[in-house]
């Protein structure tokens, strides 16, 4: 136990020292704190984004669903890889150039100016905060479970430890250090996840490795090797739906904001390469192998969602020495902190730039909004900890993977039409964006709240929440835009012509 705490103490100290160094280094301006001074290069950006995405979900939730339902859920990953790459290939260059030319500090600010609407700014801010903050809370919860499984300490100990670490990192470091720390955290996480996989495979399946694991599964539970899985869950419709939900990854707000921190346009040429090779063909295949092959063969028989969420850690603790389990827990903390820190940065920027300066106090100084951004972090963390409290008192027990895909992603998807249309469609209007977003959000909320006699969400007609809500949002956006006067020539110049000229010129390199 003493070794565990010393190791975790050193790990925390490294993060705190990096945060303090970042504070000393920073220019103390809002642009520096929120956008890392727009200096992030391709390698840092890749680790920044990959580990902003790869939360403790990749260690608990993702393998947990694969364990219970077979490999069908992996279509979420294939959709997400295309979605993330699409963000950098299709939207990224324009969003980055617009933000750089006009010194925008938040993607919601970009859209508020594009559509000339304060109401839209408030609507998008509240919507994004409502869906991102609970997801921040999922991260300390993941660490809490890891702590509980390894040390026997209550769930809240790990959750509070993670929250304190997050507050220090984000308040002191800002976006630049959050990005840099993600490199350190990413290395720890990949080492833990990949190292434990190799080690467990060599111990449990010494004769033929993964082939031996697959052969064992064919004998004990062959349904876990194909769709629809042992419980018949992943039907054709659900796999295609999961794939489409994954494609929506291009509009996760904490990923979109990363685009605005890029140093130059060359980044957009190189990022997809890393997304495809390192993300799609390497990184995400590690938890896939863990959840769909190694864990079910090494430890069959688990049927509850909560136990399945922890199955990778249980296998590691069963077969590997205790000191390595501590390293793995560090990897989980790394994954949780790297994601939650970016989400916290994004949330605090929305609070400070879009709600406080954009609506409540337009004449707030640079110094004031930086201070608001920093201190709102504490409030957001405390609020998000309610997720952990809910689980602790037994009110919110839900498989982690399904929270991401069934709650957060449908919420994030509601700004997709306004975002894509605002950057790529000259005809998109304020009224269209407002009508589409408002209708989509209201439908989503009602759909989640209104339950049928059997407990199902009757307004979704048995479909994934994205499937009925997003088309409604999109159709309204297009129809209302066509029925209302087109945006002014000035908007067209600023948001389309100037950006295109800028991107074609050599000034951007």
């Amino acid at each position, binding site marked *: 136990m003493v070794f565990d705490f010393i190791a975790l103490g050193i790990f925390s100290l490294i993060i705190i020292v990096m945060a303090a160094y970042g504070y000393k280094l920073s220019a103390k301006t809002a642009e520096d704190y929120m956008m890392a001074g727009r200096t992030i290069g391709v390698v840092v950006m890749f680790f920044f984004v990959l580990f902003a995405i790869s939360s403790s979900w990749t260690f608990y939730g993702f393998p947990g669903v694969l364990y219970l339902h077979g490999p069908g859920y992996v279509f979420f990953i294939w959709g997400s890889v295309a979605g993330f790459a699409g963000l950098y290939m299709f939207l990224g260059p324009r969003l980055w150039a617009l933000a750089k030319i006009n010194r925008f500090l938040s993607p919601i600010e970009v859209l508020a100016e594009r559509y000339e609407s304060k109401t839209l700014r408030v609507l998008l801010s509240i919507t994004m905060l409502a869906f991102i903050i609970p997801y921040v809370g999922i991260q300390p919860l993941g660490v809490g479970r890891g702590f509980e499984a390894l040390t026997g300490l209550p769930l809240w100990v790990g959750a509070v430890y993670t929250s304190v670490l997050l507050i220090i990192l984000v308040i002191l470091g800002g976006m630049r250090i959050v990005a840099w720390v993600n490199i350190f955290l990413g290395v720890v996480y990949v080492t833990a996840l990949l190292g434990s996989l190799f080690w467990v495979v060599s111990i449990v399946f010494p004769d033929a490795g993964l082939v031996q694991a697959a052969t064992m599964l064919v004998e004990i539970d062959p349904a876990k090797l194909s769709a629809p899985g042992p419980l018949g869950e992943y039907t054709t419709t659900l796999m295609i739906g999961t794939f489409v939900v994954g494609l929506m990854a291009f509009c996760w707000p904490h990923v979109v904001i990363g685009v605005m921190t890029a140093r130059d346009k060359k980044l957009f040429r190189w990022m997809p*390469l890393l997304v495809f090779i390192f993300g799609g063909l390497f990184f995400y*295949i590690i938890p896939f192998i863990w959840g769909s092959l190694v864990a079910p063969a090494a430890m069959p028989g688990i049927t509850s969602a909560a136990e399945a969420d922890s199955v990778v850690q249980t296998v590691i603790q069963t077969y590997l020495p205790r000191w390595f389990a501590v390293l793995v827990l560090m990897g989980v903390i790394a994954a949780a902190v790297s994601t939650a820190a970016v989400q916290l940065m994004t949330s605090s920027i929305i609070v400070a730039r879009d709600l406080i300066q954009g609506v409540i106090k337009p004449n707030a100084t640079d110094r004031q909004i930086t201070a608001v951004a920093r201190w709102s972090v504490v409030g957001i963390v405390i609020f998000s900890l309610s997720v952990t409290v809910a689980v602790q008192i037994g009110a919110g027990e839900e498989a982690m993977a399904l929270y991401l895909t069934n709650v957060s992603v449908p919420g994030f998807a509601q700004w997709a039409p306004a975002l894509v249309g605002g950057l790529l469609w000259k005809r998109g209007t304020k009224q269209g964006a407002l009508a589409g977003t408002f209708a989509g959000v209201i439908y989503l909320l009602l759909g989640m709240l209104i339950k049928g006699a059997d407990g199902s969400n009757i307004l979704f007609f048995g479909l994934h929440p994205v499937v009925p809500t997003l088309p409604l949002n999109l159709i309204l956006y297009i129809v209302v835009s066509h029925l209302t006067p087109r945006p002014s020539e000035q908007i067209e110049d600023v948001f389309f012509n100037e950006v295109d000229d800028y991107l074609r010129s050599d000034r951007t390199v």
Partner: protein
Amino acid sequence: MLEMKTHRAGKIFLAVLVLSIIAMMVVVGLGYMETPEGADPILLFGWMTMPLVAGVVFVLVWLVAYLVYFFKYWPYR
């Protein structure tokens, strides 16, 4: 994306990506992710399940299309 629609290479690039998404859905829809009646699950190299194989092929198609277009034809390069 607007710049891609202004020239032939960009249109081909976008068409390849859209077709790959449709192809993925068709492959899933035709039941290739399921175990054939009365047989064992299909495993490539003895361990790769079909959803993994389908995804790897999909990512490779996007990777090749991206490499060709972004390094040879992208107007902002």
